[in-house]
Each structure stands twice: as structure tokens, then as C-alpha cells.
């Protein structure tokens, strides 16, 4: 099966510091893939390279949206990456705090809309139709994510777990084929994490969106992932199914340090 995201020999330098070193990774359609590693391993930098926030120093990022040709997306602007069908969330919540929940999700539709300023002023039929479609679609997404009760609330007034879910809702509104989640369970209590587990599986199964996630909660990672990639100091040290990773010596060493007896 052709991977929808294929990253080859990716390296990223910040001055003299090599944050990512010759990294390979791929996601196949319909998979949930986890990227794990100790703090500072370069996981978020990896996301930033893929989504166009940093242009990578070396390597290739290739995407194959379903039914379309493979394209190299190194160094294109973040809004173009989103247009091509990759959406992401952040480790620390980055909603638009002074916009309502509905507006936050509507902004996600931005790159899929055509109407310009002229349309907004003239309010011709196609603009009105488009707007209605966007609002309706936004309500549907909020319904799926379980945020229907908060539609007109300002994003900043939402409880923490709901804010995290809203980030996912907004990302889904961009109509992606691959969703990048950066520590979606950070700061959640066990109950919220369980809900998140269900939600992510539901997004994959019902919406057909593949998922690449960074996560520290190992229980969640093991429960969700089809495959896991492990990085340390910007280098890939292991990859495989959850069962393989659990018993991988290099991974245990990276997380727990050298075994004294060994």
C-alpha cells in the first residue's frame, strides 16, 4: 500500500544544533501512527517541518492525498500545507481565544472557501449558499466532537478538556486526510483521556482521516497505535508495532537510561 505521508532523510539544523537527524517515517492510509520519544527529542520540530513552519535543512516530505498524485511539500507555506490536506493541533492549546467556538471551527473552513471581499459585500447567491454550507458543516463537526453545548461560547471560557477537543474540531474543519496531533492528552485526567481514545478511533474509522500523533501517555499510545516510531536526540531509534516497541532494548534505554547490570 502506498503511504500517504512519506518522510525521507529529514534533517533540521538550528545554527550548529542538529535537531532532527536523517529521520524516516511513513503513514499508510487509515493508520494511527504514534511518534514518541523523551522530552527534547525533536518530535514537535518534526511536526513543524512537515507543516511548513520551518523549512527543513535536508530531506524530502512527500504526500499522496487519496486519489491524487504524490507531491513534495518541503518549504511551502503553512496555509498551503493545510490546503493540501494536513491539519495539526498544538501541544499547548492555541485556539483563537476571543472568538466563539463556532467561529473557531468556521475559520478552519477558510481555505476551502472561495468568496472574496466582493462576495461578502454583494452577498450574491453563491456566497450565501457557501456560508450556509460552512455553518451547517461546522455544527456537524461540533456535534461529532461533542461540543454542541458550547457553540456560542468564547473559546477562552471553555473547560480544559473541551478546549482540547475544539482544537481537534478546528483541525477537522480544514478537511484533512491526515491529522497531526501534538500531545492531545497533555493535562487530561484519566477519564478525559479515555474519551479522547474513543474520539481519535472514531475520527479514523468514521471520517477516514489517518492520524499521526505525538504522545507521552503510553497507555493511550499502546491502545491507539498501529505502528510506533521512537526518536531520541533527533534520530530514529526504533519503529514497529506496540508489542515490538514495548520490548525494544534501545527504547527502554532511551527512556530509563543505561541498565547498571548490563
Amino acid at each position: 500500500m502506498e503511504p500517504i505521508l512519506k518522510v525521507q532523510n529529514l534533517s533540521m539544523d538550528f545554527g550548529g544544533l542538529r535537531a532532527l537527524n536523517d529521520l524516516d517515517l511513513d503513514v499508510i492510509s487509515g493508520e494511527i501512527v504514534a511518534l514518541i520519544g523523551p522530552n527534547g527529542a525533536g518530535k514537535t520540530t518534526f511536526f513543524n517541518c512537515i507543516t511548513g513552519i520551518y523549512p527543513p535543512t535536508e530531506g524530502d516530505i512527500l504526500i499522496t492525498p487519496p486519489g491524487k498524485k504524490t507531491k513534495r511539500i518541503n518549504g511551502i507555506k503553512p496555509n498551503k500545507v493545510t490546503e493540501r490536506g494536513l491539519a495539526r493541533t498544538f501541544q499547548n492549546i492555541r485556539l483563537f481565544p476571543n472568538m466563539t467556538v463556532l467561529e473557531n471551527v468556521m475559520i478552519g473552513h477558510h481555505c476551502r472557501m472561495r468568496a472574496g471581499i466582493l462576495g461578502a459585500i454583494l452577498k450574491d447567491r453563491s456566497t450565501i449558499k457557501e456560508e450556509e454550507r460552512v455553518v451547517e458543516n461546522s455544527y456537524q463537526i461540533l456535534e461529532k466532537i461533542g461540543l454542541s453545548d458550547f457553540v456560542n461560547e468564547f473559546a477562552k471560557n471553555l473547560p480544559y478538556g473541551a478546549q482540547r477537543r475544539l482544537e481537534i474540531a478546528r483541525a477537522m474543519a480544514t478537511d484533512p486526510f491526515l491529522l497531526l496531533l501534538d500531545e492531545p492528552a497533555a493535562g487530561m485526567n484519566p477519564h478525559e483521556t479515555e474519551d479522547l481514545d474513543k474520539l481519535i478511533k472514531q475520527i479514523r474509522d468514521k471520517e477516514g482521516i489517518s492520524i499521526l500523533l505525538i504522545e507521552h501517555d503510553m497507555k493511550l499510545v499502546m491502545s491507539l497505535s498501529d505502528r510506533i516510531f521512537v526518536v531520541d536526540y533527533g534520530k530514529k531509534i526504533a519503529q514497529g508495532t506496540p508489542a515490538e516497541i514495548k520490548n525494544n532494548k534501545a527504547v527502554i534505554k532511551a527512556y530509563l537510561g543505561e541498565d547498571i547490570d548490563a
Partner: protein
Amino acid sequence: MDYFLELFLGGLTRGSIYALIALGYTMVYGIIELINFAHGEIYMIGAFTALIVISVLTMMGMNTLAILVIAGVIAVIYSSAYGYTVEKIAYKPLRNAPRLSALISAIGMSLFLQNYVLLAQTSDFLPFPNLIPDFEFMEPYAHIIGSTDIVIVITTAIVMIILTFLIKFTRIGKAMRATSQDKTMAMLTGVDVDRVISVTFIVGSATAAIGGVLIASHVGMINFYVGFIAGIKAFVAAVLGGIGSIPGAVLGSFVLGWTESFATGYISSDYEDVFAFLILVFILIFRPAGILGRSERHRV
């Protein structure tokens, strides 16, 4: 009482003019946190463009009201083009540079545009014809308020309403608000931030040009330096109201307009600027973020 009313309405006119210019400062600041010092020059260029168009059309013998409208439209288009270009040349390359670099670039742009107009036109004051006719129904109140003032206040009100609509209800308005709240995230949700910034500059320049045409016909003369003075005053108004906030800029402008008007009327016209800046000092002491401003939070 008549005198008070006259000063009150005079302040309202002044405030309206300041508001038209202050909007550009505050919108640009809201989006890219840059104080666009060249904004006053955009206003001045609007006034000059209008003057040139008016001179040509008057020679052709057109109806005055038609001349005013055409001159206004051309001034808006021309100034918007300037605003757009200034952003592309002087600010876009410095998008990721320290804020101070962009600020200095803005001051440079301001000086450049002043001197460009000085060379291309003249350093003398040029008379600007007043094309706004005296309305007949205004006759009984003519000693309190002129028809020019009425036109200024009404135009400003209309511009404000359109702008509020644009920002609150349109797609580009939503993109603007998103960009001002979190630029990176706006990009990642698919907003073309460069385009949003361009539109912001265009809209800001357009309102400044409208201000330029109106105040030039109010005052009756212009030169290359008017943009600097008006720019500084509007900047004060924007800071007074809380820079980055659009209602703040409007409120700040009216506070400044009234302060100047009453100070001139009851004390002495020599102290006009003194009171304008005095109120700025006081407001910044007690509300450093401005009247409606939010105190800035830095993300760690």
C-alpha cells in the same frame, strides 16, 4: 450654551478625522504589532492625489459634487496602492526580524514619502478648494456647525459601520481576527496571512485617504508635511484608546478631538497641543494600555 455646542461639534469633527486616520494605525498594530509611521504620509498622498484630480476635473468644467466623489475614489485607490506597496517593500521582508527593525523601516518610509512628495510637488502650501456646498437646510445653524463638518461626521460614521461589518461578519474579517490573535495558528488553519496583512494595509490606507480628502477641504490647504502632524495626532488617539483596538481608536479620537476643541475654546488656541499630550500622559499613567486596551500578555 451656543458656544459650548459649537466647541462640542468642532471636537466631534476633529475626532472624526482623527478616527479615520487612527483606524489604520490600530488595525495594522492589531495584526502585525507594528506602528506604521508611514501611515500619515499615506493620508497626505491621498490629499495630494485628490487635489490633482480636482484641478484637472475643474478645468474640464465638471459638476462640483461629481468632482468630489471622483477625486475621493481615485485618492482611495491611489493611497491603497501606496499602502500595499509600502507593506511589500518595507515591512514584509522584516516580518521575522526584531520589532525595532520594522519600526525604523517605517520611519524611513515616512521620511522617504515626505521628501518624494516634496520633490515631485512643492514645499509650498497649496490651496485646496472646498467642494462641499453649503446646504440650505443648515442655514439657521451655520454659526454653530458648517456643512463640511456635517459631511465629515456622517462620512466617518458610514466608514465605521462598513468596517465593523467587514470585521465582524465577513470571511476576511474572521481571518483578520484570527491572524491578530495567533498568526501561526491562523496559517495552520489555512488562512493566507500575507494576504490578510495586505488587505489590512489596503483598508487602513483607504480610510486614511478619505480622511485626507475631507480634512483638506475643511482646512483649505495642504503641503507635504500635513501627513506627519495629522499622523502623530492620530497615533496619540490610537494609543489613548488602546492601540490594537478598533473601538478604542474611535473613542480615543473623540476624546482627543474634544480635549483640543475645549482647550482651544476656553483657554487658548496656543495650548491646543499641550492639552492633547497632557491627556495622553494622564491616561497612560492610570491606564497604561489605553482606555479600551488589553494589557499585553506575552506567551512563554
